[in-house]
């Protein structure tokens, strides 16, 4: 690891200031991606700003018909939270399936979505539930947040503070995990709300995406059979040693059907 200056601000304002005055500053939430990246010398930030000491970023609460999860909520906290389990059980189950127990004890929702790994689980829930990402500057709709491979709408100096999830009638997340890393080879988050049905897919493409044809079919009939013949094109999907683009395209339908079955059941 290259050397860097370390800062541990105790407020959001201090964090923004430290980030603003750093030559090439990097925010650290749980560090589950950043620290391995630094260890491999794949990044060389001048300053690391640790968000672990900021109380404003912690906590999970119900706010009317929404569930608001602080950016620094650890995956294990989300998985075991009674508030999450009663409001959106699918979100608790998603969190319980990330990585391994030690990663879940450190990794955070804010870090996960700001990093925007194409195979991360949380982006599927954020888009699948039509959540709102709150930052120190503004509120960003889920559909506008993820821009591409490791790319988000976050601007320089912008810090994710919380994610607000509208509470759905039904929802479920199903993934086909990489057996070593537990990242999603393909994961599908399906949610039925008063406003309609949303289907968001992670792992398959460079960034999370929705499948409009499935959403329309499920709005008419919320059953696994309603989408059994709906396929996504393999063009542009991810391909690696674990799965070809064609296989991932096939898995999108399989995982979406399983998610509908789980949500409907």
């Amino acid at each position, binding site marked *: 690891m290259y050397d860097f200056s370390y800062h541990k601000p105790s407020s959001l304002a201090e964090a923004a200031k430290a980030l603003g005055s750093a030559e090439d500053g990097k925010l650290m939430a749980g560090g589950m991606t950043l620290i391995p990246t630094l260890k491999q010398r794949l990044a060389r930030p001048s300053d690391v700003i640790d968000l672990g000491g900021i109380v404003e970023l912690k906590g999970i609460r119900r706010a009317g018909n929404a569930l608001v999860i602080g950016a620094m909520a650890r995956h294990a906290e989300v998985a075991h939270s009674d508030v999450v389990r009663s409001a959106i059980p699918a979100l608790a189950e998603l969190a319980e399936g990330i*990585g*391994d127990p030690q990663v879940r004890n450190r990794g955070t929702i804010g870090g996960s979505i700001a990093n925007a790994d194409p195979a991360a689980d949380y982006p599927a829930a954020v888009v699948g539930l039509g959540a709102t990402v709150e930052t120190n500057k503004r509120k960003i709709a889920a559909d506008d947040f993820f821009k591409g491979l490791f790319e988000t709408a976050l601007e320089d100096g912008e810090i994710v503070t919380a994610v607000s999830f509208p509470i759905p009638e039904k929802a479920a997340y199903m993934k086909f995990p990489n057996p070593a890393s537990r990242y999603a080879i393909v994961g599908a988050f399906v949610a039925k709300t008063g406003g309609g049905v949303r289907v968001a897919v992670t792992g398959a493409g460079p960034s999370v995406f929705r499948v409009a044809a499935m959403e329309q079919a499920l709005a008419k009939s919320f059953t696994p059979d309603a989408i059994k013949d709906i396929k996504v094109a393999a063009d542009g999907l991810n391909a690696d040693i674990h799965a070809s683009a064609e296989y991932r395209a096939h898995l999108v339908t399989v995982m979406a059907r399983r998610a509908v079955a789980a949500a409907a059941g």
Partner: protein
Amino acid sequence: MPSSVRMTVNGKAVSGTVEPRTLLVQFLREHLGLTGTHVGCDTSQCGACVVHVDGVSVKSCTMLAVQAEGAKVTTIEGLANGGLHPMQAAFHEHHGLQCGFCTPGMIMSAIDLVKHNSDPSEQEIREWLEGNICRCTGYHNIVKSIKAGAAAMRGATK
């Protein structure tokens, strides 16, 4: 720039001067001489470096020493209290190891599991060990040891 760090390790207050990039595992091994915590993969996957920080299991190769400022850290050396910890005794009794390299991490992870789930099933144990890799045993005796260790820990708290 080096800075000072203070924490409680195995019940004792310790301090040291570290660089920000010093990992918690390096601080434990190289500054404090607590070499029971191992570095297996260095890529955050194998779990040989698992310790407890403020009561939860973490990979000490994926945490900076400065992040543990003020924390309570427990390593494998901090478990035995007079005799072996029941989980250590169970690994000994059921031969939950061959080379032993992964064992400290396995035991620290297992104790965290039992804190959440005092009577884990074989399936739950295997799922919990997602982040701990053993290249010798095929896990069979590790799972057996954890089952027995959990039972012994339940007995010890009654």
